[in-house]
């Protein structure tokens, strides 16, 4: 009998994820079994309001019923059995690279796709037969190899396409003792349709789940049996996509690199306390602006659109009625510190009337390659070229000797955060100073 699935792309996809990645790395560093020790990775940066739980080991989850990973320190019980450690982002990045290196021993380099810091999609279609009789056997071999080389446990979702592998991983692999889950086109009715909690499925968050509930859809079976045209009418393209997910259909080609229509580049930070004074807020805006400009230069790009978002503190929000403000403006293509900072300060002064600030974001968009300079009638061209060079010289000094060796004196005033933050990776302790 012909089935619709006969025409769908068939392959063997593994979605491999590390069990409590950060916590496991730290447990192994201390010589403990990642599954046995109750361990929590806690980031205690100044702006985390007492501490942020980045990862919990499976044993800690079991003993103390900890659930959401990024929760607060105040939800953490004071228990002598619990081991608390600071994060080391650089170590985790290194481990991630090592793990992907191991995967390339099982599939060609073009078929390994890092999905996040602890997840990778591996297209095993062409190579799985070399390592075992069934995909499950091969998954077992990969798990054992990673455990033996790095001491880490991995969970594997197996599917005929990436979305099946992802759901197999999220819904099934994490809860079986073997740490392997499997979904194929033939088993979709038995595996995907019985899922009652819509948010467990990849691509469905809280809001989408609520939207689906309003349409009378409360589980995956109902989603799969809804009229797809109606779904599309109601939710647009996403409705169609969700319908396909419910049938385990995924026509994406992982090897096809999506073209970014318009890239943007920027940075944001949450401040360690409410900032009240204009001077100290402007110091931080200046620091972020310089960081963004430096990144533009590093990528050899010029920006012609600049945006600034300011978030107020809770108290100021209640008083003001709005959570903050957002401004964007066009400027002649540039990546010059002084020009960018000048515009940012201008935007800030336009709209700020003394509210306490807790959140600052600077983004640039409409990027063009840095291959030319627009000469300006009102400026000496020699001066202009010199200004341009200055930025690159500063970058070179930062790269050679470290960021903290050359900073503006304002960064040393009470408001400045650049020096503290230069030690961080992704907002958390990088750990360079310890190795």
């Amino acid at each position, binding site marked *: 009998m012909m089935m619709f699935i006969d025409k769908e792309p068939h392959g063997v996809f593994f979605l491999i994820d590390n069990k409590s990645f950060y916590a496991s790395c730290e447990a*192994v560093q*201390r*010589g403990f079994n990642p599954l046995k020790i109750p361990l929590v990775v806690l980031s205690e940066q100044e702006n985390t309001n007492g501490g942020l739980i980045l990862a919990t080991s499976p044993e800690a989850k079991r003993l103390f019923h900890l659930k959401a990973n990024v929760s607060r320190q105040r939800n953490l019980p004071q228990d002598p059995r619990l081991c608390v450690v*600071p994060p080391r982002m650089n170590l985790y990045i290194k481990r991630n690279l090592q793990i992907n290196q191991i995967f390339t021993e099982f599939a060609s380099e073009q078929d390994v796709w890092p999905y996040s810091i602890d997840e990778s999609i591996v297209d095993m279609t062409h190579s799985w037969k070399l390592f075992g009789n069934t995909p499950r056997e091969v998954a077992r071999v990969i798990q054992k190899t990673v455990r033996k080389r790095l001491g880490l446990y991995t969970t594997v979702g197996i599917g005929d396409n990436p979305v099946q592998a992802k759901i197999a991983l999220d819904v099934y692999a994490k809860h079986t003792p073997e740490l392997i889950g499997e979904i194929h086109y033939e088993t979709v009715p038995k595996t995907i349709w019985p899922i009652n909690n819509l948010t467990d499925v990849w691509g469905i968050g809280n809001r989408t789940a609520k939207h689906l509930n309003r349409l009378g859809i409360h589980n995956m079976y109902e989603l799969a049996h809804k009229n797809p045209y109606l779904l599309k009418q109601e939710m647009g393209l996403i409705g169609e996509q969700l319908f396909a997910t419910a049938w385990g259909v995924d026509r994406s080609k992982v090897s096809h690199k999506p073209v970014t229509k318009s890239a943007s580049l920027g940075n944001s930070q949450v401040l360690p306390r409410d900032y009240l004074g204009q001077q100290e807020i402007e110091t931080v805006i200046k620091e972020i602006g310089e960081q963004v400009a430096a990144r533009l230069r590093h990528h050899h790009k010029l920006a012609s659109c600049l945006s600034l978002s300011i978030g107020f503190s809770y108290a100021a929000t209640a008083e003001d009625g709005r959570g903050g403000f957002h401004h964007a403006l066009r400027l002649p293509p540039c990546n010059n510190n002084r020009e960018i900072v000048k515009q940012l300060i201008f935007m800030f002064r336009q709209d700020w009337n003394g509210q306490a600030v807790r959140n600052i974001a600077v983004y640039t968009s409409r990027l063009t390659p840095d291959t030319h300079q627009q000469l300006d009638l009102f400026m000496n061209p020699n001066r202009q070229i010199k200004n341009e060079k200055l930025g690159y010289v500063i970058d070179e000094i930062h790269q050679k000797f470290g960021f903290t060796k050359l900073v503006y004196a304002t960064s040393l005033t009470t408001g400045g955060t650049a020096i503290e933050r230069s030690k961080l990776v992704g907002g958390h302790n990088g750990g360079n100073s310890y190795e």
Partner: protein
Amino acid sequence: MNNDLDIIYSRIEKLFKRMSRTRYWILVNNDPYDQSYNFFFNSQRQGERLKSVPLHKLINYDLSYLEQVIKGLRSKTNLTIEFTGFAGMKWPSTQKVIQWRREQLE
């Protein structure tokens, strides 16, 4: 050689705050995956969570070198040193056992 020792000791000095009813000790792990010896500073106040802060990583993966570092460390501080991942190994110079039995959580 004792650059490593200086690094470890200077970091211990900063962390060893000598609070009352608090246990402080040093954890040394034999890491076969990274081929290194990892040092950690552990502290635990009575009835509270254990806090473990990384001190240093000895890249020189040689037991007799580690023995020298430990010897130097013992001459500078009386903190207990706990060993993990050394079960069944002996110090090269004295032939004393490093770690009698594997920890429960290893």
